[in-house]
Structures are given as structure tokens and as C-alpha cells.
């Protein structure tokens, strides 16, 4: 007879955790621009995202309440003075994922703030996108983010992307106590008041990272976007366990000492899928016949169409996120509230780590909106983001196996990711050692005039960005014993990334069990929507 303790495990107190049984339905899993339907071994722990929290009933009312009742600062109307220089700094297109249904919450915030500024006699207003070393947003994307009215009034002279390579556009502030350089966009630095408009998609974002990273430059970012800092971070999503967060905190505190920054942070719920695809957020146990039919139809259609077409279709489906909280004021007290709400939505407590963890990799990442999830981005999704979706203890045991579900195709977007191509095909064949890559090649890529030009004048990620993507996976790489990409359609991409490959998930689990032992425990993080684990 099965011991009582084991029976208890099957019916975990959290309904988001389901232990696979003989009669469990197959799982609907993201697989790049397509889906897989897979039966998992009995005993596999499946961790589902929490259902969406209720949104605030009136977003603009919540914004007004927040800016009138901020934490650690005077209300916004008291900070606005006629004739002052005001700059609104706005999170870029990397959040949320996929882009949200319009009106974007940033538009709602700006509509409230800009009206208040105009009523207060503040005319010198600029809107700066905090894209750091990300690609510049296109005109269409910029218009979608803030709405036509604001776009027409401010673009292009007073609504633009931050340029981290503008030789006259950056101001250096005093260094931190750790010697970290602190650089800020000149317009921002020379403003009497800065309003940071944030969308907090994951707990890693917001807080000091907003200003410390968003409107900074390579000279400053290299102090924390490096392998050493990443290795010292247990999880990017948990401030207490993140050296990355601590570095941003030091930089951010320095910024707060010199500049007056009023943060408006917002949290979203987990409503990633609208009506036609809302079944994707359900547990398969709860699928209706209609859901099953829709899933099969979608899976079949996506598998039969060219990948570019599937990508195009998936990129056109916005997420109907609801705003769950608006918090305003000084950096730290406002962000503390944001984190609480964020964890409430995302965190699922689980008992213990697993020997083998499966991550389905979807078609989108923060760095591939309207673009291609190239091999480096698959890597960053698996070993960077998903691995770090925890509160300091990874879901996979030290030396365990990660299984990623993705075709791992050798495709890059030359418009958005030109330097990724060189990084992948020239550097990775030589070494995968982050320290060596940083020491030998980072500066060369960062200063390559062609990449700088493409970043400044076109819509390319900065030349150094592929290094950051590689570093981002560093703590995951150091932690796991093996990575297997299941369903990889070629041999060379997994080989260059240092991974094994199999044709199917079943084969990958077999290989992982061969590595970890027949009694190895298995967990599936049934992402997306977003889910974080709190491993007890």
C-alpha cells in the first residue's frame, strides 16, 4: 500500500501544483511558434501559473489615487511648478509580454500625468523611453504605447528613445561606494523632476533598476551586467538573493541623491491570453471539449504554416492584462509594494527541488518582440529567465538536468540582432566561457562602429547585448549538470550552446533519467503565463 505521505504529495495543498497520475491528460506545451502535446511520466510535478488576480476597477482612478498619496514623497501636484523642466521616463517594449491590449497602462499614466503637468503650468516636458542598450522602438510601436494623441503632440522632438551612445547625451554622476560608474541621460539629469513610468512584469524590474539601467550607458551597465555579478546572484527575481539587484540599488541610491525621481509603478495580473486562446492558461484537467478542439486546431494550423507566418500571427495577439496595482512615490517604498503584489500573483510554493525540470519555451522574450527568438534568446529564456523564476532556491537541484522545449532553429533577425549573429557564429565556437568572452571580446563588440551605428540610427540591439544574454544564463549554467533541448531541429545550435539534443520530450526525459538516475524527480513549469516558484 502506498504510504500516506506519498498520497498527500499527490494532492498538494496548492491547486497550482498537480502530480501526474495514470489518467492525467497530456499537457499543452509551448514549443517556439508552435505547441506540443505531451504525456508526462507518472509522478511528474506540474506547476501551473496562478489564475489572474482581480484588476483595479478603474485604472485612471487608481493612478490618480497613487500620485496623490505617494510613499516617501509629496503628492505629484505639489512637486510640479510652473516653468520647471519635467521628464517622463518610460519602460520600453520589452515589457509586458506579449504587448498588452491598448490602451497600454503607460498611456493611461501619461494621460493623467501630462494633464496634471499642463494644469500646473509645466510646458517643458519630454518623454524618454528607457531602452538602455535595447533596440530603439519603432514609430509604430511608440505610437501604440502612448496612444495617438500623446504621440502626435510629442513625437519626435519631445518623445524619443534614450541614446546610450550619444557622446553629448550622457552625464556622469559620482561613483558608488563600490566604484561603479553612474551615468544618466543628459535630459533626464538636467530635469527638475523625473517621473518614471513603470510596468512591472516580473519582480526583477522596477525599483532602482528602472533609472539605474534604463537611461544609462555601457560604461555604467558593465559594472553589474557581467559574469561575476550574475554568478553571485541566486535569483534575479528576489532582491535579497540578487547581486544584480544590489548593484542597481547602489547606483539607484546615488541617482536619487542627485535627482528628484517620482516613480509610478504598476503591476499586472496573469491574464496573458484573450478569449480565443484563454484555454492556454487553464490546467488541462479543466479543458472543455471546445478547449481541446481549439488547441488541436491551433496546434495543427501553426505546425503547417511557415514559421515566419506563425510568428507574425502570434505577435499580433495582444495580452488583455488587467492592472492589479499602482504605486507611486520614492523608489524603495513604492517598489516594496510592487514586489508584494507581484509575488502574490506569480509565486507558487512548492515542496523541494527536482532532479529534472522541464521548461517549455514560447515564441516571445523581452528581446524579441516583433522579431525572432534566436538561439541566444532561447538560451536566455531557459537558463536566464525561467531558471531564475524563484525566490532564491532554483527549482532544479544543483547538478540536475534542464529540459527545454524549442526547435532551436538557427535563425536571427539581422535588423534587431546583428551582433548576436557574430557572437553566435564567431565567438561561441571558440569558447563558451563567460569570463573569457568578457575579457577578450566584450569591449570590441561594444565599440564596433557598425553596431553602435545600427543601435543609434536603426533598430538594433547594442553590440554588447549578446554578451549580456550569455551572462544572463551564467548562474543557470553554473548550477545545472546538463541541458537538453527537446525537439531541436538541428545538431549544431545545441552543440554550440553546449547542450544535448533529442527529437522528442520522451527521449529527453529518458536521457535525463540516465544522467540523474531512474528515480529522478521531475517537474514541469507550465509556463506561460508567468509563474514563479518558492521552493521550501
Amino acid at each position, binding site marked *: 500500500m502506498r504510504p500516506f505521505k506519498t498520497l498527500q504529495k499527490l494532492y498538494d495543498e496548492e491547486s497550482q501544483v498537480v502530480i501526474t497520475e495514470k489518467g492525467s491528460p497530456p499537457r499543452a506545451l509551448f514549443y517556439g511558434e508552435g505547441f506540443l502535446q505531451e504525456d508526462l511520466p507518472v509522478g511528474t510535478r506540474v506547476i501551473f501559473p496562478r489564475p489572474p488576480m482581480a484588476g483595479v476597477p478603474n485604472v485612471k482612478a487608481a493612478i490618480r489615487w497613487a500620485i496623490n498619496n505617494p510613499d516617501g514623497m509629496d503628492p505629484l501636484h505639489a512637486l510640479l511648478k510652473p516653468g520647471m523642466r519635467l521628464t517622463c521616463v518610460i519602460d520600453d517594449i520589452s515589457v509586458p509580454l506579449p504587448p498588452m491590449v491598448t490602451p497600454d497602462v503607460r498611456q493611461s499614466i501619461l494621460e493623467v500625468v501630462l494633464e496634471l503637468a499642463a494644469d500646473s503650468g509645466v510646458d517643458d516636458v519630454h518623454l524618454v523611453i528607457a531602452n538602455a542598450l535595447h533596440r530603439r522602438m519603432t514609430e509604430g510601436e511608440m505610437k501604440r504605447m502612448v496612444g495617438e494623441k500623446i504621440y502626435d503632440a510629442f513625437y519626435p522632438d519631445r518623445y524619443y528613445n534614450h541614446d546610450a551612445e550619444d*557622446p553629448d547625451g550622457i552625464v556622469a554622476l559620482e561613483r558608488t561606494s563600490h566604484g561603479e560608474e553612474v551615468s544618466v541621460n543628459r535630459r533626464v539629469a538636467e530635469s527638475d523632476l523625473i517621473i518614471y513610468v513603470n510596468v512591472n512584469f516580473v519582480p526583477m524590474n522596477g525599483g532602482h533598476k528602472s533609472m539605474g539601467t534604463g537611461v544609462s550607458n555601457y560604461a555604467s551597465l558593465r559594472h553589474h551586467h557581467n559574469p561575476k555579478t550574475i554568478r553571485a546572484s541566486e535569483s534575479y527575481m528576489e532582491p535579497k538573493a540578487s547581486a544584480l539587484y544590489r548593484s542597481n540599488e547602489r547606483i539607484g541610491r546615488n541617482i536619487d541623491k542627485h535627482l528628484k525621481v517620482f516613480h509610478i509603478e504598476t503591476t499586472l495580473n496573469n491574464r496573458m491570453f484573450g478569449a480565443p486562446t484563454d484555454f492556454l492558461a487553464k490546467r488541462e484537467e479543466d479543458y472543455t471539449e471546445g478547449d481541446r478542439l481549439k488547441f488541436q486546431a491551433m496546434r495543427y494550423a501553426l505546425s503547417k504554416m511557415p514559421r515566419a507566418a506563425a510568428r507574425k500571427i502570434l505577435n499580433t495577439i495582444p495580452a488583455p492584462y488587467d492592472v492589479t496595482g499602482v504605486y507611486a512615490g520614492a523608489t524603495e517604498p513604492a517598489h516594496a509594494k510592487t514586489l508584494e503584489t507581484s509575488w502574490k500573483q506569480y509565486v507558487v510554493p512548492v515542496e523541494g527541488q527536482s532532479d529534472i525540470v522541464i521548461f517549455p519555451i514560447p515564441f516571445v522574450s523581452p528581446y524579441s518582440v516583433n522579431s525572432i527568438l534566436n538561439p541566444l534568446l532561447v538560451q536566455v529564456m531557459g537558463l536566464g529567465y525561467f531558471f531564475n523564476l524563484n525566490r532564491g532556491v532554483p527549482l532544479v537541484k544543483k547538478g540536475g538536468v534542464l529540459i527545454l522545449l524549442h526547435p532551436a532553429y538557427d535563425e536571427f533577425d539581422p535588423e534587431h540582432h546583428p551582433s548576436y549573429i557574430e557572437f553566435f557564429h564567431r565567438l561561441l565556437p571558440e569558447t563558451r566561457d563567460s569570463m573569457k568572452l568578457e575579457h577578450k571580446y566584450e569591449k*570590441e563588440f561594444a565599440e*564596433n*562602429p*557598425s553596431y553602435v*551605428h*545600427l543601435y543609434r540610427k536603426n533598430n538594433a540591439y547594442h553590440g554588447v547585448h549578446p554578451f549580456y544574454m550569455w551572462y544572463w544564463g551564467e548562474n543557470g549554467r553554473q548550477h545545472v549538470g546538463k541541458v537538453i533541448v527537446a525537439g531541436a531541429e538541428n545538431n549544431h545550435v545545441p552543440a554550440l550552446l553546449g547542450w544535448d539534443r533529442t527529437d522528442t520530450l520522451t527521449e529527453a526525459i529518458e536521457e535525463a533519467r540516465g544522467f540523474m538516475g531512474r528515480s529522478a524527480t521531475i517537474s514541469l513549469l507550465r509556463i506561460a503565463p508567468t509563474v514563479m516558484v518558492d521552493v521550501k
Partner: protein
Amino acid sequence: MLAGVGEPSPVPASLTSPPLECQEARCHMPSKAAFFDVDGTLVKTNVVHVYAYYAMNRGSVSGIAGRTLSTALSVPLFGLMDSLDRKTFNEFFYRYYAGLTEDRLVTIAEDMFEDVLQPALFEQSQDLIDQARRSGCKVVLVTGALDFTMRPLARHLGADDLIANKMQFVGGKATGKVIPPIIEGANKANSIRAYCAKEGLTLDKCHGYSDSASDYAMLAVVGRPTAVNPDLRLRSIARAYNWPILDLK
């Protein structure tokens, strides 16, 4: 310095008065250079525009009329030859300079720069060159045009050096012959290699910029090639080799 008549090798024609920042850059002993093709890469014009300007400034009514007419009539031929073989095109084309005096050519070059080249500069050319300098590169223009026509442009852009064709002068008058080897195609690559050896630069760290597949050798010889406003052939080559592609405006 300009190479004299009969000099065998295409020694780069250093600018007579390099800008101050160039002298500073030299103090830092850069180990790499950025080599820029000019026509179509940094400026919208090509050698035909330049020659047409000279034709229009022949100095006498009959001269202007004669050269303008012959240039106009030759345009289709120029186009055909340029598309087939840049070397033949250059050799044939530079014959049209025969008989013009050296001092006249140099004087007109300054006006030609202001009237033809400067307005044709891509707005972003200077940004790209400045970025190359900030990244520690020497800036070198490599062009199939004649050196005296390009010197004002090189000075304007703040280039450190110029590798260009040199007209042969006899008795102060152009013979219409270019001192060999003509800077084009594979010879651009040879010149760059020779320049790097002479200046102690690491070829593998150097950048190359061009718009034309005829400059494939020049791009292939440097470690960091970039296609700029590329023609169809070069765009396809750049895609195949994963070279960055810039569209300068």
C-alpha cells in the same frame, strides 16, 4: 604626400594637414583602422559627378561645351563599363582629364567639394566616422577617385589618411593616365594590407565599409567588414557572411 611620377607602389597619400584630433589619436597609437570606400558609401555621388564638374569648369566656353558634350554622350558607356568592370572603367574614364593643368585641378577640387561632394554627403556619414574614431580606429578613405579630388572631403570628415588613385602629370599637365596600380577591386585590398603593414595595424581588427560588390576583396581582407547601402550583389554576400548592413541616410 602625393606620389611622384613613376613611383611604382600606391603609397597612401597622407593629408597635408591632419586635424588636431588625428594627431592626438596618433599619440594613442591605434592598432586598428576603419577603411571607408567613398562613392556610394559616404557620399551619394560617384566619379562621374566629379568629372562632370571638371568638365563644366574647363575654363573656356569651347572647353566647357566640348567636355560637357562628350561627357554627356559617354554617360551610357560609363554606366555600362562601370557595371562590367570597374578597372576598365577607371582607366578609360581618367583619360578625359588629359590636358588639364595640375594647379587648375587642385584649385577646382576645393570648389568641387563644396558644390558637389559636400551636399552629397550622407547625413550619417560623419556620425559613423566619429564613432570609428571614438572606438580607437584610424580613419582612412579608400577610393578609386583621384587623390586631389578627395583631399578636401577627407579633411572635412577628419580622416587620418587617404588611399586614392594618382594622376600622372607631365610638364604640369595631366596625361590622363593613372599611376599604376589603379586603386580598385583587389588592389584596394592590397593597398589596405600594405597600409596596415606600414602603420603597424592589425588587419584582423580593422573595419571596412563599402557599398559595392566590386569591393568584395577590400571587405574580405579586413576582420570587421560592413556593407553600407549595398548593391544587390553585396547585400546578398553580406547576408551570406553575416556582415552587418548599414543603410546610411
